[in-house]
């Protein structure tokens, strides 16, 4: 990670004395220009003009659509029936509470999130610890391990679709060679979710690994040496010195992986289509089906609003509990 140290916010004209003497032209141009109120006014106007278009566009493309989403969630909007944009209050939300397929999708998402995040943490942290040594190959490791997470998600999904298809897959062949069972991953309800989990873990464990490796390499050496001098075993030094120092990095990595674990859409779309049955139908995917296969956009909006609120609250709580604050003035 690249951290930029805190810099004093100069009010534009902070270090005039130092600068004024440096240029011959400066003597001809009175420094006083910068102290005039007109300069401050110009400054404010120019910066407002710099910021204005972006703010306007951000409001237009992010805030307004979300407001619109909330509005449609209060209507029975159906794509095949344009007249259906009328207010029915909380009807969609009431229906959600006893929609078995919705609750099933929440449960599938919970399993997917739990397993992907835990496995990514275990694998990522494990490899980061293994590689935390000064060695020449480290740069090569860093360069190659980013490949899974920068690949287009579609390509990741295709790769694993091939690997999980019997007969054409080297994985299937290898399992057979080892005398292990060769499940028909993507059509067997017991294995389909695991196929998605494995693909997601492969794609994103490098994120955890890179973050923790960076944190490990920036770790101060003194506390660790002091602990060893005091007779701490390797395990104790790790448990009581390294781990607490790494906590912020672990928390940030976990929260980000947790948030993004709701974004396995391309994998599910390509590998299983939510199936077999509803075995891999996460909430996100269920909302997509409701909205665009069954055309019930109003109901789909309600599902997404609930999902948005829950993810947002969960991540804010997680960050708060960890004692790490989002930069808010």
């Amino acid at each position, binding site marked *: 990670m690249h951290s930029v140290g805190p810099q004093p916010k100069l009010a534009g004209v902070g270090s005039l004395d130092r600068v004024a003497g440096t*240029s011959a032209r400066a003597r001809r141009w009175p420094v006083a220009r*910068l102290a005039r109120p007109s300069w401050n006014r110009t400054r404010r106007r120019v910066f407002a003009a*710099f910021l204005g278009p*972006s703010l306007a566009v951000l409001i237009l493309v992010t805030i307004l659509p979300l407001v619109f989403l909330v509005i449609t969630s209060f209507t029975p909007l159906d794509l095949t029936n344009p007249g259906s944009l009328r207010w029915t209050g909380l009807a969609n939300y009431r229906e959600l509470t006893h929609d078995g397929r919705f609750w099933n999708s929440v449960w599938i998402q919970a399993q997917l999130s739990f397993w992907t995040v835990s496995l990514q943490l275990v694998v990522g942290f494990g490899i980061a610890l293994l590689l935390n040594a000064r060695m020449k*190959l480290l740069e090569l490791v860093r360069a190659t391990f*980013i490949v899974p997470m920068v*690949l*287009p998600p579609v390509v990741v999904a*295709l790769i694993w679709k091939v690997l999980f298809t019997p007969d054409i897959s080297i994985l299937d062949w290898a399992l057979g060679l080892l005398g292990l069972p060769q499940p028909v991953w993507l059509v067997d309800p017991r294995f389909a979710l695991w196929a998605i989990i494995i693909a997601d873990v492969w794609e994103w464990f490098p994120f955890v690994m890179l973050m923790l490796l960076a944190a490990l390499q920036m770790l101060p050496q003194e506390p660790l040496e002091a602990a060893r001098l005091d007779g701490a075993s390797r395990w104790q030094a790790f448990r009581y010195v390294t781990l607490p120092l790494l906590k912020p990095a672990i928390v940030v990595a976990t929260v980000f992986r947790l948030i993004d674990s709701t974004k396995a859409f391309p994998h599910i779309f390509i590998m299983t289509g939510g199936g077999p049955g509803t075995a891999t139908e996460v909430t996100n995917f269920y909302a997509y089906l409701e909205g665009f296969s069954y055309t019930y956009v109003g109901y789909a909006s309600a599902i997404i609003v609930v999902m948005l609120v829950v993810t947002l609250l969960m991540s804010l709580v997680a960050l708060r509990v960890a004692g790490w604050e989002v930069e808010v003035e």
Partner: protein
Amino acid sequence: MSSQRQVWTALATLLLILVVLSPALFIVQMSFRTGRDAFQMPPTLVFRVTLQNYADVLQGKFVRALTNSTVTATAATVLALVLGVPAAYALSRTRFRGAGLVSLWTLSTRMAPAIAFGIPFFLIYKHLGLIDTRLGLVIIYLTFNLSLVIWMMRAFFDALPRSLEEAAYIDGAGIVKAFSTIALPLSAPGLATTAIFTFLLSWNDFFYSLLLTRSEAVTAPVAIVNFMNYESWEWGKVAAAATMIMLPVVALSAIVRKYLVRGLTAGALKG
């Protein structure tokens, strides 16, 4: 540490790299084989390399999809930079009330699943006739690109010494002049990094293209899926198409790898 042990560590590390990359390499080698040869088990390490799959793919509609991907990702990047860079500069050089809100909002939009924007944009685009247009994609890509540009560029501008711009002010330069002749050229590496990032995010998009395009403006990631369904699982061709869309990504991300984690956590990590 003995030199023998160093050799073992190096070998183990190389093996680890190979294991991690093997799924991707499997697809790449598949793209150079045709027909039955592609699925011979056990796989043969030595095989007849053929470019037939690539030739087939490049004769079909996939070329148009690749063009669409290139054009939309480039346009989306330029637009986000033109809007976002001056804003980032303003945020870096002044204190605005609510500047913290911008970073909180960046974080929130990043958390939202794509479908949260997909539904309202779909409805609005239907109304405006923007479904299946490149312009439609370029606009919706601003939902994630713009705040990313602002976030990343602000950090780069924060790292520039202000004294140079102040000297320019004293020399009579205006703010726009100091920005365009001093701050902008000095942050060229940051600009390049940010541009690559936004390009990659737009290039990799699957969901918005799936939802908002039909045939004219389809981008490569969605075209592969269509292609897969219509060509009745001709895996060699699918592998060739997949290799073509992952190649630029791997090359570009190698350039920005130092900033990758920072870009992926935009809105959260300070600086």
